[in-house]
């Protein structure tokens, strides 16, 4: 395990225990199969019950809802370890926990919490998060999905969502829609929509060259009729889904470090064992420089996420701090993955090694949950007070 700066000593016993359990799970259950899953374009669905019994779904939500009640550093370490396996596996857990369980927890009624959270923690109910639309990615405020309330208090939803992780697997979707015409972003509310509701269809998006061990779908809602109590009562405007994204991005900042660690460890081990020109390639300065650069950036990322986690546990973390960490760490991980792949030479293009898989995955991670560029602008606005989005 890559811990050049002895960061373990800054973790509590409980945090280390959580990390070690998920680490072993990934070693034993994810790594042996994930390369094949990736090549076959298949999410390893068999892992869901096991991940649930390990307790990773919504692990930072309270025990009264069947969750583990961990702190946010532990939650981050879980994401790190899962993404050390594969970004697709981590994405599944992020969506389930941060994008579906979290909004139900934060904006849902007591009954919604009691109905959904325990079954989502146990993996009986799988969720997806419908915010992004075909023409509204970085600009969710422009969404055109509409929810219209009927005279009996029920709702009818119409619209389409795209790039939805777990979309075709999910039993339930948290769908974000405008309730007062397409110009009013303050009218955006969340709805808990069972995916077997008539008019709701999910279709897998084919031909992905990234996140191949993850289901990504398009959702179409045509006169989807849900009861009045499907609305998340405490959701209010665009800031509600953005709060969910902050939760998920927090996990991504950790997860991407895990992917980078996996690539670095693979590259370092290969460099010490692969012999060329009569000596291990790790003895050549070019490869040493590669490895030194990778390790340095990983250590910085590790320190960044740990401090971010401590801020989150203290309740003082800001969305802009999360933007900085997501932006830095994912970009760092894409660089590390690419350099690792190059160090591996021809072997590096094989699915037998993890680096190219991580490299391709991280291009999605770079793009989703706020692209790298969008986070640049978030930081720009935080620094200057000037909005460069519009």
């Amino acid at each position, binding site marked *: 395990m890559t811990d050049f700066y002895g960061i373990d000593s800054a973790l509590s016993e409980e945090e280390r225990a959580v990390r070690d359990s998920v680490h072993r799970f990934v070693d034993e259950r994810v790594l042996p199969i994930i390369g094949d899953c990736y090549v076959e374009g298949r999410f390893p669905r068999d892992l869901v019950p096991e991940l649930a019994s390990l307790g990773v779904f919504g692990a930072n939500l309270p*025990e009264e809802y069947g969750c583990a009640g961990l702190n946010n550093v532990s939650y981050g370490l879980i994401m790190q370890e899962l993404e050390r396996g594969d970004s697709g596996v981590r994405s599944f857990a992020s969506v389930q926990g941060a994008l579906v369980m979290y909004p139900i927890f934060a904006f849902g009624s007591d009954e919604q919490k009691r109905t959904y959270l325990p079954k989502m923690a146990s993996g009986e109910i799988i969720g997806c998060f419908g915010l992004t639309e075909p023409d509204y990615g970085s600009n969710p405020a422009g969404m055109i999905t509409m929810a219209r309330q009927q005279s009996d208090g029920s709702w009818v939803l119409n619209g389409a969502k795209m790039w939805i992780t777990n979309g075709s697997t999910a039993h339930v979707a948290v769908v974000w829609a405008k309730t007062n015409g397409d110009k009013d972003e303050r009218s955006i509310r969340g709805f808990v929509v069972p995916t077997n509701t008539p008019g709701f269809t999910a279709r897998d998006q084919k031909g992905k060259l990234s996140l191949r061990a993850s289901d990504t779908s398009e959702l179409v809602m045509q006169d989807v009729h849900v009861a009045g109590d499907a609305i998340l009562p405490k959701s209010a405007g665009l800031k509600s889904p953005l709060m969910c994204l902050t939760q998920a991005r927090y996990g991504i900042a950790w997860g991407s470090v895990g992917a980078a660690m996996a690539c670095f460890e693979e590259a370092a081990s290969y460099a010490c064992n692969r012999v060329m020109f009569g000596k291990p390639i790790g003895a050549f300065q070019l490869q040493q420089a590669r490895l030194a650069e990778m390790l340095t950036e990983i250590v910085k990322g590790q320190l960044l996420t740990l401090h971010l986690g401590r801020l989150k546990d203290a309740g003082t973390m800001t969305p802009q701090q999360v933007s900085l960490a997501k932006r830095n760490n994912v970009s760092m991980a894409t660089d590390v993955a690419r350099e690792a792949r190059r160090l591996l030479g021809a072997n590096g293009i094989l699915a037998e090694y993890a680096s190219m898989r991580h490299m391709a995955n991280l291009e999605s991670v770079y793009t989703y949950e706020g692209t790298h560029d969008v986070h640049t602008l978030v930081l720009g606005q935080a620094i200057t007070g000037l909005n460069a989005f519009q």
Partner: protein
Amino acid sequence: MKIAVCIKRAADMETRFKIAADGRSIDEAGVKFDIADFDGFAVEAALQLKEKDGTGEVTVISLGKDAVQETLRKALSMGADKAVHLKTDAVPADALAIARVLAAELEGGGYDLMLFGRMAIDAANQSVGPMAAELLGVPCVSAASQLGVAGGRGTARRELEGAAEVLEFPLPAVVTIDEGIARPRLPSLKGIMAAKKKPLEVKPVQVGESRVTVIKMELPPERTGGRIIGEGPDAVPELVRLLQTEAKVL
């Protein structure tokens, strides 16, 4: 059924070991520690026996400095019910001295089964369990690869060189657990949280005289590799001889 499991905190065997400056111990800087391998099997065996029985209690016991509490909590997070830390700053190299302390704790505990790992993966003596059994005067089967308990009696299988034996014994008894019983379960995240609330009793102990002293620790010579000992079937006798007398693995 009341079960005690004696566990040891040991270095992760994947570690690239370094000898400490005193030349008599392992440099522990940066080394990860966990439940010693076979002791993890023993905890798993105890939990499965309890689950099969439907009732009972599993107590984990460890001797050592304060760091062993982390190891005890790991066992609690797997599902053990309570823990006892026999606190001492120095654990001797003498298995008999260790067995005496553990036997004193086990004595009068009312345990039906007292489990140990077959051996501590680090010290590799494979002695403490049978010694504790002798000191307690209870039956013992060591290195069990299968264990069944019913009606106050146990049946265990032991693996021998190219053979195996089956033994029966009455409870209470000491059984030391070999690999092959069942892989230790992963502590769930809820289990980790629950472990913090389970009882962990700290008992300072005096370890008696040790007649075994570590004089030196050293790393074995580096593997060289590349040695071709012969060609074809004719090389087999030499290979077997080397495996027996040089590598000592046959």
